[in-house]
């Protein structure tokens, strides 16, 4: 699967209150949540973001609360993938469980706001079409790939529950 989009660049330690402030957690609808994505730290982000765009951030992305509303809001506003130096542990599992594509990349500093990227999720290769650069990221461990392949954790469990002998 290929993802192509513009980069919206963020700093280190972007927390879940940055991604979706708690006052909006009275909804579980990704589109409604998406309307307030990054509102506290970049008020015009939702206006600027286009479907398919990519968030590129520093280390410890998604730290703070366990709210799954955070990856849902990112998905809901149209962002197709997140690339960061590292991810906070709960955000990491939430992104896997709801099927938000994300990649860990060391060379984040080389990518600029507005760059146009192409991500091949299967191979983990990121092409920076603006700067004519290519980066290789680590593939997910097999266990996690299995969850993603089944379309998220709940579908994976449904599959296991209904076809236990074939696993």
């Amino acid at each position: 699967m290929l993802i192509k989009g513009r980069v919206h660049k963020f700093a280190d330690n972007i927390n879940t209150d940055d991604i979706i402030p708690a006052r909006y957690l009275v909804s579980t609808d990704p589109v409604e949540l998406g309307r307030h994505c990054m509102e506290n730290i970049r008020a015009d982000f939702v206006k600027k973001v286009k479907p398919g765009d990519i968030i590129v951030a520093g280390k410890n992305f998604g730290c703070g609360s366990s709210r799954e509303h955070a990856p849902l809001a990112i998905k809901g506003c149209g962002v197709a993938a997140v690339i960061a130096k590292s991810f906070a542990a709960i955000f990491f599992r939430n992104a896997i469980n709801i099927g938000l594509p994300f990649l860990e990349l060391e060379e984040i500093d080389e990518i600029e706001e507005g760059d146009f990227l192409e991500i091949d999720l299967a191979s983990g290769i990121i092409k920076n079409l603006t700067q004519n650069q290519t980066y290789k990221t680590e593939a997910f461990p097999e266990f996690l790939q299995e969850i993603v392949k089944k379309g998220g954790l709940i579908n994976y469990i449904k599959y296991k529950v209904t076809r236990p002998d074939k696993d």
Partner: protein
Amino acid sequence: MGYTIAQKILLAHADKKDIKPGDFIEAKIDLCLGNDITAPLAIEEFKKSGFKKVFDRNKIALVPDHFLPAKDLKSANQYKVLADFASEQGIRHFFALGNMGIEHVLLPQMGLVGPGDLVIGADSHTCTYGALGAYATGVGSTDLARAFVDGKCWFKVPPSIKLIYQGRLKKWVLGKDLILFTLGKIGVDGASYKVMEFSGPVITRLSMDDRFTMANMAIEAGARAGIIEPDEITFNYLKFIRGKKKLTQYAIHNTQYKSDKDAVYEKIYTWDVSELEPQVACPHLPSKVRPAGELQDIKIDQVVIGSCTNGRLSDLRIAAQILKGKKIKPGLRLIVIPATQRIYQEAVKEGLVEIFLKAGGVFSTPTCGPCLGGHMGVLAEGEVCLATTNRNFVGRMGSPKSFVYLSGPAVAAASAITGKITPPN
């Protein structure tokens, strides 16, 4: 090679002969938890996928604590989702208004967590129960939905780091100061994907309430769990909570819930904290820590004493001790929130509430409320709050242009009197 206490608990719940950091395991959980923000999403997932019955109605806790009493129509509807699901599934540990409290104070108080337990909660501060020697960790709503189905969860076995606290604490220096100090040392990703094992003579002497405060904020260093080996203090607490009878099973397994002598730690920190002063975390990270004494020119508009971090009875007692016979600074707002209904009752009985009210503060029903900018004390633009809560991110308690400082109850109470950040004396 030996195991840490965290690895022992994970292994005991997994279908494996041995485990090592980095392994992916599926493990059976003893208890799973959701609140009025995270559980509706889990319930939606559970139903949408066509599942009908939860795996065990006794192993699920639903605690509507974040926006309760309902702050608006939408949160009222979310509460109803929990209440309806609880009634339809016969969920035993559903806590309606009146029995409700802040989840991470309530569940230990109800005796629902003990040493060696594996607990997941769709709330990041689930790590609080590590204070009892449980492996407790925050997960997402989908993880919770999955646990509803088969009582299991996937884990990537984390490495452990050990934090040893030497010396003797000064007066007014307690669990919150220790954990803020620790965050200042290792940073907000200093324990990312790891287990923080708190130990040393200072921890051995620390009360259960202060241990809960420390384990509670392990997530603020990015940790999967914070854990303390159970000891006499743990068992006395459990005896008090559960009575003698149910305690024996833990007493028998006592040695099982200690780290082996040859357990492997990724890193060991040793600090002498004898000279430690009361600590305050400055905006906008819990790791931006300075001694309270260095921040005495910071004027504050509001003080909040409460939350899953510091809303326990001992926290209220400390605050009351400092506020007794005093008045808060005119114009300042002091909001005191007991974490549970039982703590509320005790605070009334002990006369603490009267002290807060006479000082000019208010005393609220239990709720997470202002900690996450939900209700009951949201901040306006430009306002400064000193709170005994756990996070001071941009806009955490209201306006993105407000400022949150974090401290323990002693600094919070002393500061409410002066209107500026003030160390207790």
